[in-house]
């Protein structure tokens, strides 16, 4: 009973107009700009192309837009929510009053965590829908193509967003409990998307084999998230064409683009793109899952034993 109360309290706290506006305005704004840029890069008259081509192009664009931006930016919202929903209550003492009531210590903490996850996933879902529509508008694709492209990979992308949001929320919860300060919680949690974007650019640097030689893929958040993205879509039965794999790899490094060979039947669209294979996708899934579970368990353990003066 109390857990449900704390979840709804956290959702209410997280959906205050100021917080939502501060997040949604830049989120939708940048989504629109990116969709315009992607849609206007050689795909202006997509509506006149064959349906299969329209679907293929929309999938490629949507994969890139969603992986790089639509799912990743909401982690910043999650960082802010961890700061305002947990660290802030520790700083202001409202948890102190709450914990004087006959509740178990884990209940308000897990309630806040779940509230953050719910709001984070709903915010991402709104972005995924807006992003899909924005691409549809800017490319001029047909509505039929939208159904055969964006909507087919939406469930997998949403499932991936859920995993990423849970990870960020768990890290935020742990940081809030350990540091007890809003600033450190927000900055610490925001490191996840910062590392994601950072490694996205590291792979574009002319470092040759250094990436593999220095095992840079081990801390490469972007690569591991890409592996999780591919694994989840694979588990849900989404078949990526080689061209889609290439698009995924451009923003995550998951597939070995150099391994593309041309399938003559598909006139120029790659017939096979193997995994880059630094780390098998299931390992990345396990690592991400373990980090999330360990962070949340650590937060609950510590909160259950710490002094709340």
């Amino acid at each position: 009973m109390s857990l449900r109360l704390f979840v709804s309290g956290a959702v209410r706290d997280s959906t205050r107009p100021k917080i939502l506006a501060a997040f949604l305005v830049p989120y939708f704004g940048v989504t629109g700009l990116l969709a315009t840029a992607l849609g206007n890069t050689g795909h202006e008259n997509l509506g006149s192309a064959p349906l299969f081509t329209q679907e293929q192009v929309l999938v490629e664009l949507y994969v890139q837009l969603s992986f790089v931006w639509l799912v990743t930016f909401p982690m910043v919202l999650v960082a802010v929510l961890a700061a305002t929903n947990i660290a802030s209550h520790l700083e202001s003492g409202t948890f102190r009053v709450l914990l004087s009531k006959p509740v178990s210590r884990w209940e308000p903490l897990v309630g806040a965590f779940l509230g953050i996850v719910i709001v984070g996933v709903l915010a991402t879902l709104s972005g995924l829908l807006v992003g899909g529509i924005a691409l549809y508008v800017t490319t001029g694709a047909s509505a039929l193509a939208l159904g055969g492209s964006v909507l087919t990979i939406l469930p997998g992308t949403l499932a991936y967003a859920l995993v990423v949001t849970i990870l960020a929320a768990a890290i935020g919860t742990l940081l809030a409990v350990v540091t007890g300060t809003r600033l450190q919680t927000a900055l610490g949690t925001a490191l996840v998307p910062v590392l994601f974007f950072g490694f996205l650019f590291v792979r574009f640097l002319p470092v040759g084999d250094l990436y593999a030689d220095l095992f840079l893929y081990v801390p490469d958040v972007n690569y591991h998230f890409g592996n999780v993205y591919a694994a989840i879509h694979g588990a849900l039965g989404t078949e990526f064409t080689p061209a889609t794999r290439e698009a995924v790899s451009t923003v995550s490094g998951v597939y070995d683009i150099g391994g593309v060979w041309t399938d003559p039947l598909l006139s120029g669209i790659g017939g096979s793109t193997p995994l880059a294979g630094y780390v098998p996708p299931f390992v990345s899934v396990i690592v991400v899952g373990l980090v999330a579970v360990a962070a949340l368990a650590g937060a609950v353990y510590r909160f259950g034993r710490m002094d709340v003066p």
Partner: protein
Amino acid sequence: MIETTNLTKHFGETVAVDGIDLTVEEGSVHGFVGPNGAGKTTAMQLLVGLLSPTDGEATIGGEPAGSKAAKELLGYSPQELALRESMTGRGYLEYMGRAAGMDKSDVRERADELLSWLDLKEAAGRRVGSYSGGMQRRLSLAQAMIHDPELLILDEPTTGLDPSGRQKIMDALRELPEQGMTVFVSSHVLAELEQYVGTVTILRDGEIVITDTIDAVQQAYGGQALAVETDDDERVGELLADIEVARNIEIEDGRLLVMTDDADQLRERLQGLLVEHDISLRSMSEAGTLQEAFADILEEGEQ
């Protein structure tokens, strides 16, 4: 209702609470007094279960402090207000009641009762952030009482309030024993505690100096005092300064408090002075002062 045995709390090298053995009887109003840094707030937080003791133990109604069963028995209002300012007063009370496990209809009824009793009914629909300090204090008291606990632990419940705000809280606290509640209240405004506590514990440097009835503490440590109200308290205070049986003359809460070791002689001299200087006497009563006892105890400690 409260029992502690060798209750101890260290923060690193600092000993905040040093092995206190405390008993607070059921149905009593027990004052907890000490200078800043004496360990009052830490001791209270140990009782509520917000802090874990370094050593010793505490029980609330026989249940280990911090356990769910113990927390069902108590309500706590901290010294620093920690209300959810974005909620309405009623919404906050209902939220806290639900957190305490009450069902919706019970919590609404109880919230209404408390809002009326604490004179907050008209402001119940307003955001807590817009409340005055006095209203927030009363709301904090209401949240502590929302689940009808047997014990109230109140940490400096009148801090930061003006005289009328203090009076409202004190009036409310006076009524609590009639409702069958035990109250454990800390304050450094000792003149207030005198008005409603029956027993008192004085804490210094984390240790209990004395715990007894308020009369016994006053007798053991303090002298007698007269509380006097006249047309011109300041002038009377100046005149009394020249009388050898009068000492520690203070104007507190609109009355003149004068300590003495011979109340009869002081009364006689004072009446003579008032007649001589044509000053009207409104009231005069004996008042043992905890403040004096407290000062003596602290002085002993320093020596």
